[in-house]
């Protein structure tokens, strides 16, 4: 395994980040955090703790009221809109509300993520079938997303987030609508992605998916980091080498 000084640099770094929604709703206050390359981090906390806001800040859907956010060593506040769009192509996000287009089929919904990166039709189809196979959704490939159950829609949203084998995957409550069997499939997908080099940040209520693991768990409480646990030292992976390969 190749390691270098660059590998030890965090992929995500937040320094004293605060976010206040108008008029005066404090979502995050002075949050500082580092996520290393190749790490899996669980963000936990009750509803309204600021988990979703934190994920939105990392993928630049929201901007912080105060503080510094760096992704891959770049200050997000200094990246131009075109640069943000390029960055988003390398970040897969599974949204809590899925953000699927109901009239489009499962295939079309997932393909959207790959089309924006100008992948070929053949490559798109192959990758989608692989993902649907992992998530046991192969038989739904041509079904409109609106006709799927919530659990199935959640898995489609995850498949779309994973489609480009992203450098960073952000998942917001990825198992909220899933039964134990489907949860296992999703966890399996996360492990596959992580092994191939993706850094993963998961915001969840679901203790089952992290209680048996050694991954770092960060608990948010009313916009502050209250506890930070985890025995696991983040693995050092040459992310770009694995992606180049």
């Amino acid at each position: 395994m190749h390691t270098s000084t660059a590998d030890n640099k965090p992929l995500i770094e937040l320094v004293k980040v605060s976010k206040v929604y108008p008029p005066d709703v404090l979502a995050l206050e002075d949050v500082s955090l580092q996520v290393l390359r190749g790490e899996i981090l669980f963000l936990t906390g009750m509803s309204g703790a600021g988990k979703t806001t934190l994920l939105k800040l990392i993928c630049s859907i929201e901007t912080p009221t105060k503080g510094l956010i760096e992704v891959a060593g770049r200050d997000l506040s200094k990246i131009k809109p075109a640069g943000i769009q390029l960055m988003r192509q390398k970040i897969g996000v599974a949204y809590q509300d899925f953000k699927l287009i109901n009239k489009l089929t499962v295939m079309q919904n997932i393909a959207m993520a790959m089309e924006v990166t100008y992948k070929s039709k053949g490559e798109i189809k192959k990758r989608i079938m692989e993902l649907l196979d992992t998530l046991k959704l192969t038989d739904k490939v041509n079904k409109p997303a609106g006709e799927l159950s919530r659990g199935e829609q959640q898995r489609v949203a995850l498949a779309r987030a994973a489609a480009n084998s992203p450098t960073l995957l952000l998942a917001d409550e990825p198992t909220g609508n899933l039964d134990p069997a489907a949860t296992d499939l999703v966890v399996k997908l996360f492990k596959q992605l992580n092994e191939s080099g993706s850094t993963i940040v998961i915001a969840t209520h679901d203790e089952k998916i992290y209680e048996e693991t050694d991954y770092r768990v960060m608990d948010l409480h009313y916009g502050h980091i209250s506890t930070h646990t985890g025995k696991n030292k983040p693995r050092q992976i040459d992310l770009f080498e694995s992606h180049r390969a």
Partner: protein
Amino acid sequence: MQYLAYILRQTARNLRLAWGTQLMTLLTVTLSVLIFAFFFLIYTNMMKAGERLGDDVRIIVYLDDEIVPQMRPQIERKIREFSEVEKIVFISRQNAFEKLGKQLAEEKDVLNDLGPYFLPPSIEIYPLKTLKNLTHINQFSEYLQTLPGVSKVQYGREWLKRFGYFTSLLRLVVLLSGGLLIMSMTFIVSYTIRLTVVSRHEELEILRLLGASSAYIRMPLLLEGLLQGLLGSTLGLGALFILYQWICRRFSGPGLLHLFDFTFFAPEIIAAILFAGILLCTAGSLFSIRRFIRI
């Protein structure tokens, strides 16, 4: 290559999904081009006809008495003092009588009892092309009227006046239909693109979150406007050509059209109308994109 394929696929999808609105837009663009091009065609043909008729314009100055040959250079000089002319022809009473006789041909016997002196002598002045403007001819005729020995100046004033009014009116109609063309094309295309943006709002938002570039989102919409312009202008001009051929067939033979030498647009005018159509529709599309898409 993948980019181009996507743009074309997405444009086709936009057109297919809102085909009813697209068809109405296409129809409006086609009709606007047809109306404008129709009046413009009439106008250009009238202008050409005007130029042709202008070649035959002459001013006839009727005199009280015959001019002796020695006086002619002096009169010529006085005429040319006001404006250079193409030609000046002096017609004596005798010449006028012979001319009339030729015009009457077989019926010239009616002149037998009248004798050659009942017609006044005259001067025929052929103005230069630069003077064939109605206002100038008017001023010129007023000047000629002031010359000594002149009884009357004739140049088809009423006819020229009416022709001038008609071409002015036609020019106004062309300008108005041109305004209509600009407004309808930019507004209707802009409105259609706005509808596309609204109907695809959710999809465009997701594309933005997935990292689609500005060009990736905007190009299909821009192409949509461009295609509306190209198709609408082509159909409008095609419809006008069919109408033109029908008019030519319907009014063929000796008549008004024969006199006017009714012709269709030159290739460069066709290209200019097509280009203007494309430009206006693309501008309409661009307006909506800039206004309603924020990426």
